[in-house]
């Protein structure tokens, strides 16, 4: 009996919340709801603040939660713009279409993923193959890649992070869609970027990766080569844009249908003037 009441209550509560939000959105026309990727959240906030300074009549609310959260909200029609550090999956687009929403994709900036080690680690260059072997557990000692005789401690972001998936698909599996390689079970999954940098700072055995925007000066960034015959490249605005740094990815914003009115103006502003702020947050601007 109680179970039945609960079953009845839950969808009811969800319905009222949704209609309430819709009503609010109609009466206050200049509110832009923006949600999604934690990688993008600082950049999205900076854009929103700058844009609101220039356009005081517009209110933009930015929240994080992860790419999947933002896309789910777009599918449910509760946000105007979803931020994502990965492209929408096929089934997500289908789910949106089923709700009568046609997502439109914009690439708003680029992000490089830096591979970091303790500053005292003599290793300063790695090939993609070596990084893949390290993270799958094939290489377990720094001496195998030209370092000291120390065990390697693997650090990664949690599996819900867009950075985790990107790193798995493009570095560990080297972009091969048929590859079944996974992170070694010995990998330490850190709940935050701060968790990674704290461990990198104090542990000379550790190797980690994170968005270039989150790398602090007390971590050592490793130069990466596509294959042993290519040059070793450090991540920077130049090397990402000319494509010589191998681990970089586009960052996306999705709108529900072709953007209209204020959302359209905001997206256009991000793609033009807004690009000036991008390097300040450690990301790479377009062009």
């Amino acid at each position, binding site marked *: 009996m*109680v*179970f039945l009441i*609960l*079953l009845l209550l839950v969808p009811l509560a969800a319905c009222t919340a949704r209609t309430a939000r819709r009503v609010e959105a109609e009466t206050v026309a200049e509110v832009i709801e923006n949600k999604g990727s934690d990688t993008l959240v600082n950049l999205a906030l900076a854009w929103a603040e700058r844009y609101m300074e220039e356009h005081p009549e517009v209110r933009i609310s930015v929240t994080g*939660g*992860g*790419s*999947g*959260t933002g896309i*789910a909200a777009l599918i449910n029609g509760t946000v105007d713009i979803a931020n994502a550090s990965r492209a929408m999956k096929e089934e997500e687009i289908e789910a949106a279409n089923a709700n009568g929403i046609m997502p439109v994709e914009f690439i708003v900036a680029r992000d490089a993923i830096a591979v970091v080690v303790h500053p005292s680690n003599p290793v300063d260059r790695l090939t993609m193959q070596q990084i893949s072997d390290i993270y799958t557990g094939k290489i377990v000692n720094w001496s195998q890649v030209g370092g000291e005789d*120390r*065990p*390697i*401690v693997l650090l990664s972001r*949690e*599996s*819900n*992070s867009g950075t*985790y*998936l990107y790193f798995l698909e493009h570095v560990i599996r080297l972009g091969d869609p048929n590859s079944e390689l*996974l*992170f070694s*079970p*010995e*990998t*330490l*999954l*850190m*709940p935050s970027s701060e*968790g990674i940098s*704290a*461990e990198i700072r*104090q*542990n000379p*055995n*550790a190797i980690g990766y994170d968005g270039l925007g989150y790398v602090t000066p007390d971590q050592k960034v490793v130069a990466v080569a596509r294959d042993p015959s290519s040059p070793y490249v450090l991540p920077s605005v130049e090397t990402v844009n000319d494509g010589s740094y191998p681990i970089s990815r586009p960052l996306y914003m999705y709108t529900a249908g072709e953007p209209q009115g204020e959302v359209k103006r905001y997206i256009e502003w991000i793609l033009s003037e807004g690009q000036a702020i991008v390097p300040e947050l450690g990301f790479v601007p377009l062009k």
Partner: protein
Amino acid sequence: MEQMRRPRLGEFVIESLVKVAGLSSIGFVVLIFFFLLREGVPVFFEVELTNLFSTRWYPTFGLFGTLPLILGSALVTLSAIAIALPLGVVTAVFVREVAPHWAREILKPMIEVLAGIPSVVLGFFGMTLLAPVVRRMLGMPTGLTALTGALILAYMSLPTIISVAEDALDAVPKSYRDAGLALGATQWQTIWRVVVPAARSGIVTAVMLGMGRAIGETMAVMMVTGNAARMPLTLDSLFRPVRTMTATIAAEMGEVAEGSVHYHALFGIGIILFVITFILNLTAAATIFKKRRRGGLR
């Protein structure tokens, strides 16, 4: 008449409110339990049991092996209790039996303050201060290990263990102590041979409640155990990273799509956790009940 009715009405209203408040807590537990079942049970049909109880937890790729998580929680919790039990019981004995009155007046509130430290503060402390020490002292590759988690958890379950154990010692009748001393036993012999054994069931309760506290702790554990979902089967597992059930739920619930297999799997872990803590609490309650029926100690 009018004056007589009013207070009665007020009394009736207040009585009903108190009754509703009391009953609602039972109602909420039942509702939470059914919610947990509704969200978690589907996983037992969506994922084969061989997968669910395998050794690999890669939820993004359809591998839902919960064994490393269950064993990880067990390892951290049992080690924490192994550290906290002797410390807690000895502290309780000291506070109740040995310490002079003024020392007891200072110690008891201090122990209660210990219980009030937010777990995220302890987690941060563990991550930045304790983990480097553990790494250097043990010469292990990393300081984010099961042991680090156990140390933090032991610290967190100490207040529970101390205060419940102290209550149990308090309940031992004075006549037991008098009898012990009258037979010529020293104070030390009286404490260890008479008082502590007499309070045994209360101490078991203390340990059970401490374990319940430890196994459900999330934040601090997530920050210091490294969260690697490896099987803790080798001898050195205590000094290696582990991933607990609670940390898994907390870390992954943020981004799962509602209604997906992964979402149901996380609630499935919640059910397993609920059942374990339920059994622990039941055992704790049963020992209290048995003690009452025996009519021995009050």
